């Protein structure tokens, strides 16, 4: 049976959906359940990576240290992973995470900017971590460009390179073209991270696996930015049914979703007109809640903001553009009225 490694990111990407409000107790409960269910990796960081705690991305209720230490107390078998976006966090944050039990560093850049990750990848490898790298918003570039950037990350020492559909904007053929080319041309493993803005998170993850991806992400109840990620309990069930070996206990992962995460959710995770607009316009999923906040100040249709951001090819991390664009649309409509 072909093995697929699953990294759960409820405690990282899922953090967006609870406005970075996890307490140490939330972390202990969720990490323990994931560890017992048998996922390969458990990612724990601010939604925007280590040191994401900021005005730009939102303050977290607890520090990265507190959450990592809480997980370390309960995780026995799974590997603890952390996310780092160069430009936001630094190598100092990775060293801190190692002290608190991190075994996997996930280093993420925009799909065209792989060369800003060299110092972080090299140091993480030198310190004995497994290194998984992310090429974010991969839908924005052609497969050949994605490959060129992936090769840079491979040359720095990455163990696994992910095609990341940060905007949930890809259709299965987009996934196949990118993952397939990377699998064919790289020497390292290929992974995939989905968002559900077009309702394709499970289908796209399957397409990636069929093209040779061997490491994939999911979250309990699909908790994540935008319309969420691939629901990990569904992913495990589907992969098990097809005949892949994920090493995850289906009942236990279902229980973790239903009994621990669902009661913790502060709002239903649905594909509504705003999250659908993210996928349609190709906008970074974590912009969603920031957009809702912006329209409280400048009352315009959130879809207009997201479509405009898509047109301007705004990249991950540019959350400050949301208020700028909201203000611009507001002023324009006010003048017309």
């Amino acid at each position, binding site marked *: 049976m072909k093995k697929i490694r699953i990294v759960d990111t409820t405690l990282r990407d899922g953090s967006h959906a609870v406005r970075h409000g996890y307490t140490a107790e939330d972390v202990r409960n969720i990490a323990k359940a994931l560890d017992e269910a048998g996922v390969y990796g458990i990612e724990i960081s601010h939604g925007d990576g280590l040191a994401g705690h900021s*005005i730009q991305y939102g303050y977290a209720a607890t520090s990265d240290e507190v959450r990592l230490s809480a997980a370390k107390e309960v995780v026995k078998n799974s590997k603890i992973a952390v996310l780092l976006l160069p*430009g936001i966090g630094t190598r*100092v944050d990775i060293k801190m995470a190692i002290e608190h039990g991190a075994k996997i560093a996930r280093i993420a850049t925009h799909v065209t900017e792989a060369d800003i990750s060299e110092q*972080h990848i090299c140091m993480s490898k030198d310190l004995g971590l497994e290194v998984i790298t992310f090429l974010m918003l991969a839908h924005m570039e052609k497969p050949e460009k994605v490959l060129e950037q992936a090769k840079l990350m491979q040359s720095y020492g990455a163990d696994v390179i992910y095609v990341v559909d940060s905007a949930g904007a890809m259709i299965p053929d987009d996934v196949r073209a990118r993952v397939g080319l990377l699998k064919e041309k790289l020497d390292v493993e290929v992974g995939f991270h989905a968002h559900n803005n077009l309702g394709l998170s499970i289908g796209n993850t399957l397409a990636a696996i069929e093209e040779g991806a061997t490491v994939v992400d999911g979250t309990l109840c699909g908790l994540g930015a935008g319309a969420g990620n691939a629901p990990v309990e569904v992913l495990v069930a589907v992969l098990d049914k097809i005949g892949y070996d994920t090493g995850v206990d289906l009942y236990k992962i279902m229980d973790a979703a239903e009994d621990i995460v669902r009661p913790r959710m502060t709002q239903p995770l649905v594909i509504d007109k705003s999250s659908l607009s993210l996928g349609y316009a190709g906008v970074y999923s974590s912009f969603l809640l920031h957009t809702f906040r912006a329209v409280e*100040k400048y009352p315009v249709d959130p879809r207009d903001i997201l479509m405009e951001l898509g047109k301007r090819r705004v*990249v991950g991390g*540019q959350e400050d553009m949301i208020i700028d664009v909201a203000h611009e649309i507001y002023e324009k409509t006010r003048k017309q009225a």
Partner: protein
Amino acid sequence: MSEKKIDVAIIGPGNIGTDLLYKIKKRSKYMNVKAMVGIYETSEGLKRARDMGVGTTSKGIEGLQDFDSIRMAFDATSAAAHVKHAEFLKERGIVAIDLTPASIGPYVCPVVNLDEHLDAPNINLITCGGQATIPIVYAVSRVAKVSYGEIVATIASKSAGPGTRQNIDEFTQTTAKGIEVIGGADRGKAIIILNPAEPPIIMRNTIYTEIEDRVDLDKVKESIEYVISKIREYVPGYRLRLGPIADGNRITTMIEVEGAGDFLPKYAGNLDVETSAAVAIGEKVAEKLVEADKVGV
């Protein structure tokens, strides 16, 4: 009336070094570029300098020995290289204007503390993002107690050279420190985003500050407008985009920086703000040297 000028050198004939050369040649009253220092005889930058009638050497910093009139040198190489250059320059009494993140000398941002370190043997420019954003943190600090300053600098991918890319941690760390030391915030944080959109975007920055007491937005606004008018004296393309907006004790200000387009393209406001600041500092130091020469000290 022609003022006497002092001879200066530029170390590093890349895009930054060449932009410095253009700026000084075009506008400087007190500086004359005598030498461009590189390490490759065939480099484009050295050729351009020669075509403009500037002396060149491809022997690196040691090559400066052939130019004994040099009083000041702009270093546009790398932090590691500057550590070596700084020693060489200091031994010979040449003032170093350091555009790398080496941070050997004190941080200077012209609009904040230009006059404080005119006698320093080595002056550091912090980072390009710092030159663009720290003045706004400072503007708020002038009228309120800033407990936290956070800046987000978004620049065109094309304007980030290999030096910035391979040392992005140094950028965020040095800028954060500058927000505290020069901006006056108790704590600083810096974020940098590279955007590859075509045509390249103009540098835009968001500056968030949290202040201890109630926000007097009119006072903050007035201070920001004053500081921006001062920056525009050396960076004419520095503009307020939005704000200041108050949200509780938090103030958000957005600015954009369009370059002068001397040698660097206009979208690279991030680089222009740094070369312009370096020239502004150099000019002031040079003026002082010229005055001292007159008195015959």
